[in-house]
């Protein structure tokens, strides 16, 4: 890992205007992504993880959404300030994205060949014949059998797993520095999901690119990422390397989340651990810590001021009363 991050997100805030008022779906988050690493962004629905991913490519639907504050620096360039034309060069070139729904993410009335070569021609300036060869090459790399023949198929002639492979091939065709994968396996079956996870990991190592994996599934994160951030209600609750994050979570939310995942155990439990209550409404946030109402460790101070993300030991977390023995380092 190099010292300078490939992507540096600072104090990013994303706002949506709704009939009831403005809502901050993402509220001041900062994180770095380094070359050749996989960063997981985990959280439950509505925590802002998908919006964060979209913002990196300038794809926030606008209106109603907009980047309200903060910067997104890719190799020193602030993407949040780029105009639309310059941003188009970045999309699919330096940063690629793959999505959750492989069934609908490809254009149904164009062949895979047409969709892939268009991207390659646009970003690499090759001839159609060259682009076609590259596309066949990429399809082979993502494990599509007989790629030269499948290239001229339409998306509906392929299974969900195959389409997701095509998406990945398209995303990697121009050698991006960063791949944003938004729930790439959620819509797939368990056995297909395993194949795709394996594939993304293998390609990440092969291309030495950075990957941001957005998912609600902590299992997927544990198996693919080196580092992860846990989001709750538009904020980062905890950020750490995978080992400490899963072995000794500091934020009560991370802990609760890890605890409540159904997993195959040696013994059937009578009660699964749960997190009581539900996620607060973004229009109606509590004054202090956003997790306080559901937290068993919450105290008075949690309900008055919001905790900042603080580095302590191996983890960074936003909590006044973290779990674990290490005393928190003094807050700056």
């Amino acid at each position: 890992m190099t010292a300078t991050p490939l992507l540096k997100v600072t104090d990013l805030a994303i706002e949506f205007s709704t009939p009831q008022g403005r809502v901050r779906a993402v509220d001041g988050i900062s994180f770095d992504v380094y070359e050749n690493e996989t960063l997981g962004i985990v959280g439950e629905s509505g925590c802002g993880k998908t919006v964060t991913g979209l913002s990196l490519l300038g794809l926030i639907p606008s209106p109603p959404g907009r980047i309200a504050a903060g910067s997104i620096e890719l190799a020193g360039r602030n993407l949040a300030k780029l105009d639309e034309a310059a941003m188009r060069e970045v999309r699919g070139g330096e940063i690629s994205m793959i999505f959750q729904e492989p069934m609908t993410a490809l254009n149904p009335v164009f062949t895979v060949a047409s969709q892939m070569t268009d991207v390659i021609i646009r970003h690499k300036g090759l001839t159609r014949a060259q682009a076609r060869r590259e596309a066949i090459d990429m399809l082979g790399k993502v494990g599509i059998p007989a790629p030269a023949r499948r290239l001229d198929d339409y998306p509906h002639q392929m299974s969900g797993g195959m389409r997701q492979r095509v998406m990945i091939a398209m995303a990697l065709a121009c050698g991006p520095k960063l791949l944003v994968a938004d729930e790439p396996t959620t819509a797939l079956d368990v056995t297909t999901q395993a194949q795709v996870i394996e594939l993304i990991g293998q390609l990440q190592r092969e291309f030495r690119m950075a990957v941001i994996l957005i998912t609600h599934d902590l299992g997927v994160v544990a198996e693919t990422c080196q580092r992860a951030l846990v989001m709750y209600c538009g904020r980062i609750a905890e950020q750490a390397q995978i080992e400490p994050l899963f072995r000794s979570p500091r934020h009560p939310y991370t802990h609760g989340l890890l605890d409540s995942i159904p997993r195959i155990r040696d013994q059937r439990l009578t009660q699964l651990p749960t997190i009581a209550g539900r996620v607060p409404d973004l229009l109606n946030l509590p004054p202090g810590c956003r997790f306080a109402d559901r937290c068993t460790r919450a105290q008075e101070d949690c309900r008055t001021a919001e905790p900042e993300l603080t580095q302590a030991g191996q983890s960074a977390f936003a909590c006044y009363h973290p779990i674990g023995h290490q005393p928190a380092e003094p807050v700056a």
Partner: protein
Amino acid sequence: MSEAAPLLQVDGLRKYFPVRGGLFRRVVAQVRAVDDVTLQLRRGQTFGLVGESGCGKSTLGRSIIRLQEPTGGRVLLDGTDITRLGRQALLPYRRRMQMIFQDPYASLSPRRTVAQTLREPLDIHQIGTPKEREHQVSQLLDVVGMSARVLNRYPHEFSGGQRQRIGIARALSLKPDLIVADEPVSALDVSVQSQILNLIADLQREHGIAFLFIAHDLAVIQHVSDVVGVMYLGKLVEVADATALYSSPKHPYTRALMSAIPQPEPGSGRQRIMLEGDVPSPMNPPSGCPFHTRCPDAMAKCAELTPQFTNLGSERSPHAVSCHLYGHDS
């Protein structure tokens, strides 16, 4: 009712969907969604049914409670074959089997209040006086952990987890003996999932309701099930007590399915069994063992002979596997 007689006995149940085509919309093919499934469920027991999408598990659940008309086979509820009952004759049996659905946003009628939704079953089956029904509705909400103050609200005012609780209350309203739960937690966030799973496990213990619990997630199934059945391409391939199945899965498909679940334990260093390719189309299932096209242990005869069930467990705790690896003749 004798101890031995099962509450639910499913015998060779089949559900084929015709594929029509051509000029006069003739049947040109059959999708074999459920193909010759046999299973039993005792009173108060939970049968966990697991499989990937398209394996026919939802269709099986719906065919059992006659939300879909089975193509063949029998479903016996307390010894009565309900597959051929007419609407009126079926009504008393409807009362005894209910369903919990997957999508909490689609399972409640959006223009009807909680009270209307929960009262409807009581009205249809004319249970108690209108006054008693009102009382019963409040009680139902209490059972699923909700306050009676929400009675006059509409579904869209609730979160996914709350709606799922209302759906469960509706299923409980007729005091059924059997509930088919079709992926009841897969649309929910993790933290809410476990709340609902706990609720279902509690209800099962307290009310002695038998559940057919359908899910694609083996981990979810484990928490609620006494017996687990694994389905692949419309057929059951392995059925066993939960403990036996999770401690020593036999069928290669079950083993692959178990190893494919991403575990939230970094560096667990498990050996993953990676299946090749995709599930074949149920319109045109492979010959012999349906799994042979993707099976890491496939042998020559797997493509030709359909395997029969072999009991690898004891008489009291059977462990049935349909695989040539364990056949008597192998």
